[in-house]
């Protein structure tokens, strides 16, 4: 199976508010997909549905399973870090490893201990005695030691300093990721994961506004830095979004051939963060 997640017309309502509105997408094996959206856009709700933590309308299949009804089977093949704070504070590291070893058929304790040996996390320590960064290292070590096919990360590095964040993603790529594994990740700090991603999905107001491979972005999107009369000409080509930078205009175009923009200013492929802002703020709703 190459399609790990198949979502067809998935919706989730909380009373009158629609958190996820008729969303369809696929995630294939070996991808690292960034799910990016502003607060309240529905990304966490969507991830929860994928993880079987909440039920939803529509058809959702993860690893061929119904996530909500077959959560136990699903969790043998999925790992997730929902937030850094979720490890229970009272537990000892050794107890945590004992418990996961007893409950998770795909957990390798030796691997977890090997990974933890590279950190300052000691097996006799309680989680409450560890710093926030160490707790994340612990959690990532555990998850890396599980032979899971899909890893879901929801804001995994929130509240961590830059060194831990860099380390986290380096470890994720070096120790966890291979072509058999798939990662779905949400974060606010898009810049930091931009180079990791193979795919991006933008979600806004419960809708998916972009679902594309990273390598396809330069073919569709171009950012133009321009000024003066050139700006007027460029504006006529209907940019998605326009902003001011040091007195110059920066415009972002979708599916406008680069040849049309030739001579109007400096062209480059936009950063994911800028693309995101353009898509969310500039696109007609």
């Amino acid at each position, binding site marked *: 199976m190459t399609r790990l997640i198949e979502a067809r017309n998935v919706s989730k309502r909380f009373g009158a508010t629609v958190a996820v509105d008729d969303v369809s997408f696929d995630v294939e094996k070996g991808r690292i997909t960034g799910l990016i959206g502003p607060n309240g856009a529905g990304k966490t709700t969507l991830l929860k549905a994928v993880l079987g933590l909440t039920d939803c309308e529509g058809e959702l299949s993860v690893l061929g399973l119904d996530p909500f009804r077959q959560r136990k089977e699903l969790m043998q093949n999925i*790992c997730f870090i929902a937030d850094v704070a979720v490890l229970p504070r009272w537990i000892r590291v050794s*107890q945590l490893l004992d418990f996961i070893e007893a*409950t998770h*058929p795909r957990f390798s304790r030796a691997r977890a201990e090997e990974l933890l040996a590279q950190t300052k996390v000691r097996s006799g320590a309680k989680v409450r005695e560890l710093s926030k960064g160490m707790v994340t290292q612990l959690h990532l070590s555990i998850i890396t030691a599980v032979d899971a096919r899909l890893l879901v990360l929801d804001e995994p590095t929130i509240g961590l300093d830059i060194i831990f964040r860099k380390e986290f993603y380096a470890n994720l790529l070096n120790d966890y990721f291979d072509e058999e594994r798939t990662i779905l990740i949400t974060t606010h700090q898009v810049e930091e994961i931009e180079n990791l991603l193979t795919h991006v999905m933008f979600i806004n107001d419960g809708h998916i506004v972009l679902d594309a491979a990273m390598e396809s972005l330069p073919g569709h999107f171009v950012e133009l830095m321009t000024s003066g009369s050139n700006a007027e000409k460029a504006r006529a080509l209907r940019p998605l979004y326009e902003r001011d930078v040091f007195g110059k205009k920066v415009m972002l175009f979708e599916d406008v051939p680069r040849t049309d923009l030739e001579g109007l200013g400096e062209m480059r492929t936009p950063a994911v963060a800028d693309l995101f802002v353009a898509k969310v703020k500039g696109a007609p709703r």
Partner: protein
Amino acid sequence: MNIMVALLRREIWEHRSIYVVPAVIGLVVTLMSLTGQVVVSAFDQAVDLAVFGASNLGARERSAAITVLMTAISTPFILAMSVLSVFYLLDCLYAERKDRSILFWRSLPVTDAETVLSKLATALIVIPLVTFLLIVATTLLVLTISGIWLSLRGGSAAQLIWSAAPLAENWLAALVFLLALPLWLSPFAGWFLLVSSWTRRSPLLVAFLPLVVAPMLERILLGTSWLRDAIFVRSGSMPLFRGVDAAEYLFHDGDQLKLGESSATTLLPLVDLGKFFSSPALWAGFAICALLTAGAIYMRRYRDES
């Protein structure tokens, strides 16, 4: 099975009070028996006389006396166990939501039913068994200390205590009682689990207020007292025992209490398991407990915290 063992072990890790509380009580009881003996030792002659008198008692009277001592030792453990179980049940599904570790626990391949049932089993089986082990240890400790003390006063510990002590029978009776009590009160256990899985704050208040208010409302609105009986009479009337008469423990002979010829000297004859397990109220309680526990499983599964 492996998963259930891991889950039960997890509960003991998290709720260390399961063994700390009975251990502390065991320590206090032991210290009390020590100080008691020191204080009593001040009455030199009287004590010597009493030890002498005890040596002349029949074996059955000595057994009965030790049964009284063992009952006295067990009582504080049983009271503590009841309080401990209530607090445990109210906390076990509430704390994991409060510190948000529920998201981590649910990321492991363990069903909500397995998790909730492990918490019920902790209250109904693990806590009573741990309490039982500490009762046994404390009894042995107190009897050993008393034996040493008796020997120092010139009595014979072997004769006065060890040959007479009906340890096995009384421990068996205690074990049966410790396991039967939570079964009898299981509808309350189910209720506490449900409250723990559902309330947003102060589980203690949310759990007990309805137990008090609902019977009052029933009385005012319907004029009946079915709930009052179900809640308050139940908690004090476990059908495990034969009447005390059945065992003919003691009878009055003039103004003296005497042990009858055929009367029991241990607690075991009091226990009537047939009566217990054939009580419709017990099975009705199981049914209510099952319903409320299913409710707690449902809450853990469907409740979306964020």
